[in-house]
């Protein structure tokens, strides 16, 4: 219509951009339609559950001294289950409440959807799972365990493709950039990652590129001391990109295996801070065109739907290669991870289930799904 507007934004003629014409609402619907598929996996899933399942945690106990969990072996799964137990017990007792000896009708499905929404799964995902449960079972009596199995299988189906263990590559130094919003747990995650690398016998350097927050450098220095890694730092307020550049240079000179770069927390809607992140990557590439070899987005499990925007913008600016989800030891369920995986398919490398060095655990889609479903 208005020539002014065309000029203003440089629109191409409408024919060239059919994408524009798709109304938002229709798109959303389409997503849902695609998502609803028949459920061949239930049987398999149920079987798998039978085989692998550790014994169920006592759900009613709010602060369990988990005598049931053999500490050494079930290590992190136990911990995850312990962490998720409260939330999943809410979820599963809710499910049991809805479905015990009841017919599957519209009202019950609505209640199920609500339970899923409470787990931060988001509207689309909750809708999809609800539909999957309803598929072919409408008006039939349904067993609560079956609902859990369907729920777990649906979640696992989405999460399975993104279950990618983190591996340090062969590049020397292998440069890992850690990004995320403020308070997500970047520095702690770096400490834990560094500890893992050290255990594998690799030499590690930490670059304290969070030159903004007070004592961020000291925090990383403490971690460096704990795990036996060199820490590159500059006084607070220094240029973080310059520091990253020098750290890479030094890591090359000293033939260090792994360079972990900590960055300042930034909200993804702050254009200038995101530009700073872009600059860090640019200067790294001046020395090594393939750096950073991994860009890890640290996500707080308590985050709600905003995590989707975080993943989107950080990916766009920093080329995120994988996600680490922290703070899964609370009541937060990390259900947003399910929506994230469906939407972006970014690899999920690890989850943080506690504060100590060993609490960074590889991400296991099945265990995660079962823990959410309360199986």
């Amino acid at each position, binding site marked *: *219509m*208005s020539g*002014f*507007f065309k*000029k*203003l*934004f*440089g*629109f*191409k003629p*409408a024919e060239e*951009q059919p994408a*524009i*014409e798709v*109304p*938002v*609402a*229709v798109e959303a619907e389409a997503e849902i339609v695609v998502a609803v598929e028949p459920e061949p996996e239930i049987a398999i899933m149920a079987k798998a559950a039978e085989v692998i399942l550790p014994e169920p945690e006592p759900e009613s106990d*709010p*602060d369990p001294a988990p005598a049931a969990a053999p500490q050494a072996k079930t290590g992190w799964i136990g911990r995850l289950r312990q962490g998720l137990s*409260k939330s999943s017990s809410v979820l599963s007792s809710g499910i049991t409440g809805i479905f015990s000896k009841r017919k599957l009708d519209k009202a019950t499905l609505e209640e199920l959807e*609500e339970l899923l*929404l*409470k*787990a*931060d799964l988001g*509207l689309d995902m909750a809708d999809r799972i609800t539909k999957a449960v309803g598929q072919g079972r409408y008006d039939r009596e349904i067993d609560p365990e079956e609902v859990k199995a369907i729920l777990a299988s649906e979640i696992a189906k989405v999460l399975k493709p993104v279950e990618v263990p983190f591996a340090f590559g062969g590049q020397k130094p292998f440069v890992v950039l850690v990004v995320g*919003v*403020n*308070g997500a*747990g970047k520095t*702690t995650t770096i400490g834990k990652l560094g500890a893992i690398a050290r255990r594998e016998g690799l030499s590690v350097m930490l670059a304290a590129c969070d030159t903004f*927050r*007070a*004592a*961020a450098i*000291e*925090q990383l*220095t*403490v*971690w460096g001391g704990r795990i036996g890694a060199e820490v590159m730092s500059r006084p*607070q307020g220094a240029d973080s990109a310059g520091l990253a550049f020098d750290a890479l240079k030094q890591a090359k000179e000293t033939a260090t295996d792994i360079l972990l770069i900590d960055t300042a927390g930034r*909200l*993804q*809607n702050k*254009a200038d801070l995101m530009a700073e992140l872009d600059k860090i990557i640019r200067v790294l590439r001046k020395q090594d065109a393939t750096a950073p070899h991994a860009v890890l987005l640290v996500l*707080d499990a*308590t*985050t*709600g*739907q*905003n*995590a989707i*925007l975080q993943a989107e913008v950080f990916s766009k600016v920093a080329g995120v290669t994988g996600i680490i989800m922290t*703070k899964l030891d*609370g*009541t*937060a369920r990390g*259900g947003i991870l399910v929506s994230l995986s469906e939407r972006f398919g970014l690899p999920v490398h690890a989850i943080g289930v506690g*504060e100590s060095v060993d609490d960074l655990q590889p991400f296991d889609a099945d265990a995660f799904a079962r823990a959410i479903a309360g199986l």
Partner: protein
Amino acid sequence: MFETLSDRLSGILDKLTGRGSLSEADVDAALREVRRALIEADAALDVVKSFTDKVRARAVGAEVIRSVTPGQMVVKIVHDALVETLGADEGGLDLRAAAPVPILMVGLQGSGKTTTTAKIAKRLKEREKKRILMASLDVRRPAAQEQLAILGTQIGVDTLEIIAGQNPVTITQRAMDQARRGGYDVVMLDTAGRLHIDAELMAENAAVRDACRPHETLLVADALTGQDAVNLAKSFNEQIGITGIVLTRIDGDGRGGAALSMRAVTGKPIKLMGTGEKLDGLEDFHPGRIASRILGMGDVVSLVEKAAETIDHDKARKIAARMKKGTFDLEDMAEQLQQVVKMGGLGGIMGMMPGVAKMKKQISEANLDNKIVARQIAIISSMTKFEKANPKVMNASRKKRVAAGSGTKVEEINKLLKMHLQMADMMKKLGRNPGLMGKMFGGGGGPSAAEMERMQAELASMDPSKLPPEMRAMMEQSGGKAAALPDLSKLSQGLPGLGASRGLPGLGGNIFKGFPGLPGKKK
């Protein structure tokens, strides 16, 4: 990704125009969308339910004001109910107790407790002239105590000396002792971040509470929190007993439904909001703003604030003075362009405008490129001083030289000159029109908080009949086509809340109207 509630509701309820009052069916249809909007905004489900019940009771049978569609009416009712639920501006901390007044800060890890502690201390020191002692009880996170000490130095507030190996209760007692002896007015105690299901740490917090008997116990919570907000607010309130909530990261682009959840579940007021990493980023709580945001109605207030924040007032005043005289040269225009860049580019500005959210996608698909602005700045920078002051002298050979110097083409320079002419024209008119803009430039400060609230309220009760036809067309055609994009110059004039300024306040000109010649990205 978010559609605004008003857009959605107008789609559903537009057919119903002309009826006298809202029927139950109308309301039910609308409330389904309200529920969706609230859940997308991370408001907790139980809270959403009781909230929609409240709205239903109020909306059924409500008279639809003439010239307002039922959809708009519902939005208004929802908005008002939200503001009510979120609580009035209770703002501010209660310090009416015998000095030293202890303030205990609690919350999850990474919610921003330490930064918020320093922000509150700075505010109390500067606004209320209090003497404050800060103490960090976080003996777990490496360098947490140092962090508070560093912040204390930055804001000129004393912190308790760090003694390694002490437990939080001992530190608390020491802090209270020192405050009593040192004659401090306020003691701020920053606790270690903890999970609300961690019984051991919660017990530690309770012990600290008993040791200092805080007058205020503030729960610091992240505005980006999801459904878990309810659990954490409830546990902290039940186990420690909070007196208020501080919402952090409100400067993010989260919708802030957590605010509603926490307020509803604890009944405790949201006292303050943290905005940004800088230590003066602390504001009183504005329920109206958060309500609009939760409903996805755009955040004009933020836009105005951002403008006020980023615009260099000295420069702005100079430009304003020149505008009054009717002179607006290329140098001034370069300033304006730089302001746009500072505010996050055209996309950033437009994203905050209500009703424009839907077009955001189209804008990004339209190859809107901030490089255009950068290139225009480059063109101006390549001119001589004389040329900048007298754009009329630009002849063919000068243009060629500037094009070569800025790496552009002569056509682009022509476009820029044309755009400048139009802007200068508008500036002349504007210079004679004192309004919000005049206040902005003249006074050097932004519109007052009250004015902003009013604007926001006006926006909420937006009268569609006053909207320009372009905007209505946009609302009707969900998605729309590129060709149907409204003329934004009219749109911004038509926004009721901005009526007085005829444009985006603080931008030194109606940017949309002001960039008529802005060339598109090269294909």
